[in-house]
């Protein structure tokens, strides 16, 4: 099946965060954060440690429940939708500290990403009805062709995830998210802890996902090189507030951003 290149950034917001506030006890992790993400774009979220970046992704994927504000996906308010339903709607994500199923094979981890798309009921799978068998085989082919081949990890398919090097685990995490066939992909520090070569590979994968599959990407990253290279727009968080939003060029010379970063260094 040939991949049809999809035009990049569309003129439409696929993801909208409005007035999102989240606090833990007395600590305000997010304060009235707004963010809108163009369909087909790559949006970066940067900010010092503890700025609330991961918390923001957690609110979007439904793992954290914000005290106020709303999240809408593709024009639909998903604020009250459970995390697994949001995944089924097309919000995929990876984790800052890879949250894989370590005892399972790479293949099973990736197949799990497709869980919500599969239809076989539990009785059908136990009896291994022809329908259930066909679905499983189709899944296997799909995972091999669309994900493992794409991420150059077919040779690892039967490896136990826990036995893989950290950089590869990050790749499995991406693979699992891709198996969800997401429309928006949330990546939490995809190149953290990687060497230069792994970083380049990962950056290329992210670009390919966006360009070839038309997936909208939101990524948190501390590696400024990667952020500046990949992103169409960048949002800056500091102490839970979105202090800036703009193109990479705008962000690079934004006075508040420079202050937030220098402030962090001085501290």
């Amino acid at each position, binding site marked *: 099946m040939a991949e049809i290149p999809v035009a990049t950034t569309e003129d439409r917001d696929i993801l909208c965060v409005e007035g999102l506030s989240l606090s833990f006890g007395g600590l305000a992790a997010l304060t009235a954060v707004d963010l809108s993400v163009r369909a087909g774009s790559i949006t970066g979220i940067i900010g010092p440690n503890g700025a609330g970046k991961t918390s923001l992704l957690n609110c979007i994927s439904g793992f954290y429940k914000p005290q106020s504000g709303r999240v809408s996906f593709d024009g639909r308010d998903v604020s009250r939708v459970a995390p697994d339903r949001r995944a089924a709607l097309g919000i995929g994500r990876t984790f800052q500290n890879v949250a894989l199923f370590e005892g399972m094979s790479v293949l099973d981890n990736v197949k799990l990403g497709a869980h919500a798309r599969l239809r076989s009921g539990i009785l059908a*799978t136990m009896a291994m009805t022809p329908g259930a068998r066909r679905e499983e085989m189709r899944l296997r082919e799909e995972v091999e062709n669309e994900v493992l081949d794409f991420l150059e990890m077919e040779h690892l398919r039967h490896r136990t995830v826990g036995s893989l090097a950290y950089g590869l685990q990050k790749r499995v995490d991406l693979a699992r998210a891709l198996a969800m066939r997401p429309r928006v992909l949330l990546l939490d520090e995809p190149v953290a802890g990687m060497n230069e070569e792994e970083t380049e590979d990962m950056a290329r994968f992210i670009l390919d996902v966006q360009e070839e599959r038309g997936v909208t990407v939101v990524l948190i990253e501390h590696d400024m090189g990667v952020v500046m290279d990949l992103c169409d727009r960048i949002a800056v968080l500091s102490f839970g507030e979105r202090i800036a939003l703009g193109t990479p060029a705008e962000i690079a010379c934004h006075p508040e951003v420079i202050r937030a970063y220098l402030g962090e260094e001085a501290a």
Partner: protein
Amino acid sequence: MLIGNYKETYAADEAILRTPATRVWTVVALGAALAFPFLAGDYLLYLVNLMGVLAIGALGLNILIGFTGQISLGHAAFMGIGAYGTAILASRFGLPFWITIPAGGALACAGGMVVGVPSLRVKGLYLAIATLAAQVILEWVFTNWTSVTGGIRGINVAPASILGFPLDTDTRIYFLILGVAVLHFVLATNLRRSRWGRAFVAVRDRDVAAEIVGVNLFRTKILSFMVSSYYAGIAGGLWVYFTKVLTPENFPLSLSIQFLAIVIVGGLGSIPGTVYGTVFMTLVPEMLKAGTGLVRGVWPDAQSYLFPLRDVVFGLLIVVFLIFEPHGLAEVWNRVKRFFSLWPFAK
């Protein structure tokens, strides 16, 4: 030594019996199983029948605990639900076993669904207590709902029969137990390799990540409880036709603990381990009995002192395995196999 089984297609790679060797061994094992009752003595046959019934129940508990990471101390009571369902349908309505046993399974499954509900909110110790409550309540119901269960007098059930041919001896019932057990082990193997098996393990390993990749925690846990108690119910139904009499004390808490011991000793999450665990845990009390027989000459009261030790031994085995061999006998067996597959190159 098996090396380089190159799998040409994904279908072959996904098949259950992947290598010619496993296929051959499967056939050999089935042949041996069919010949067994004609070669074994009465007592051994009785024990093996018992193991067959317990293995099905234990497999259900392993699906719940080993696959899904949920605990239950009420497994024996679910077996009781299946047993009573089967016995009542058979004795009052004269239905045949191929209806009563699945119906007992379905009834237990419904019970499991209800008891599984708290699993969304509570985990670990609290879930253990909730399921313990189910065990106590159900035992009470078995004893006191006399009009239905026959109370402590119990229910007598006629032997199962196929087209008028009664399965009234241990040899004959053996084949029923064997067939049902093989079927349910195959079903569980399929399950383990399917989207639901993966979801079960995902919920066990990291429920947060499972939910975020699209696994509905509640539905998955409930399904696991349902499958688990369905297995218990099937075991209960077979038990009825095996013993032909059913009383409330057949399904005490100590049987729930025994199931737990089987699963832990055999290997959490291991399907073959469930068999090893069942065999081992059925033989332990036998060895205790044999032990008391040996010392009877010098210590005539041994029986009365040592027999209660059974539960202590089960408890000890659970603890010892959890600490020293958390993957159970299945892992021990894997080590043995690895040793021999490399032998004589390994020392």
